[in-house]
């Protein structure tokens, strides 16, 4: 297997964590049935269990893209 075909390191969401976006990014996610904005202004606490299925995917994607980070 060539180097580029190696699987990327897995990122997992903590059960509960605070998330903040990098400058000028904003990620909306569904948490507890409502839309919550992860912005660059203030960290928001999210529970993995209360994120919608699609929002978990989006949050992981944003972390991978370095648009959002867990504190």
């Amino acid at each position: 297997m060539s180097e580029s075909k190696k699987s990327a390191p897995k990122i997992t969401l903590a059960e509960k964590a605070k998330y903040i976006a990098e400058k000028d990014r904003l990620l909306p996610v569904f948490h507890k049935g409502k839309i919550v904005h992860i912005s660059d202004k203030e960290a928001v606490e999210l529970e993995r269990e209360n994120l919608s299925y699609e929002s978990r995917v989006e949050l992981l994607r944003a972390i991978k893209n370095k648009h959002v980070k867990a504190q």
Partner: protein
Amino acid sequence: MTGVSFTNRVPGTKTSVGIKVSGFRQSEKVVVLIGHASVAGGTVNPGVVTTIENFGDPVNAAAECATYFGANSEIGEMVVAAINSVLYSDLPSKVFPKIKVVALAEDDDDLETLLGSLQSLPMPHVASPFPITDATNLAALKLHLEAISGHNRGSNGQFGSVGYIASLDELATASPLSIAAGTQFLAFPWLRDSSAAKANKVHEVAAAIAILMAANPVPYNPTDEVRAGKLKPPTNASDYHSVGDTGTVALGLDAGLMPLFVDDSGEVRISRAIVSLRTNAEAIDDAYYDIQDWQIMYEYRFNCYIESKTEPFKNKKLSDQKLRDFKSAILKIAESFERQGMFQHVAKLADQFVAIREEGNRHAGIVKSPVNVVPGFHQKGIDITGTNEFDTITL
């Protein structure tokens, strides 16, 4: 009167009506495409407005654009993408809008200067070649469309306009830009594509969606799930939008984006055609403002304007009698819109249609119409600031 008799009818005579089918039917609607010419350029100078003759033929249109703007130009790609979008769409009624094109020079990214020279060009639907991340050109288009959509533009205006700026970006990148722009004059078709080799170019996406909106005929039905012909799905399936109540379609719409999703046969479709305007953040749920509802209101404004410029209202002093007669005339327009399925409850809301003098200018008349007559447009009326119950035009 002679020669008319009820006894000389000939029951056996057959009558036939031949309908000559002569190619595609072009609609009265217009889409304006702005894009770059090629380095070499062609016969049409940048900044000159040109109408594409081959409005329904992507192959001939490509050749036409190569002559006008040089081979493989960005503007040529937009024209082809636009025609394909309508040609292969599944809009219930297919009409081909008039395509007007304006080129920027190949190395010119100054949209503001170009638009400044086009202030008399009506552009009810206009596609920009620049992405949503180009803040300068986004602001320039927004400012221009706000200005030319003013009610005092006369026959050079269009009483409302929508600009299309596409995005291939990640949700975290596109959503703050859309929320910040938030205007009835801009729509942001969003087809996420994280691949280095994008399946579509951003200007092609803008052109394809702009023309579909212009191609949507009266009574401006919703374009939910309408196919954007020949737009390609993003290279990576992981970029496809997730549908459902909590997917990226819902999140994108909430941020004022217009997500384009990929169906199970790989076709790119409009989730819901909205402008980027959002209700106030204090509201529990955001309401969407659909492009087709604005189109109805813009067409109604245009009809009111035309009525004011025809007999018996043309060149007459603004008397109380004229205002009363004009209210009667606009109610007839509204009833006609209701018969065509664009308005509802006109008789019930008749008292709310108003034609009055403008306070600051006694020579000007104002027409106020309740926005609730447009089905589905009530969100404008229930905006929590409570100031948008009426759509107002000054004549």
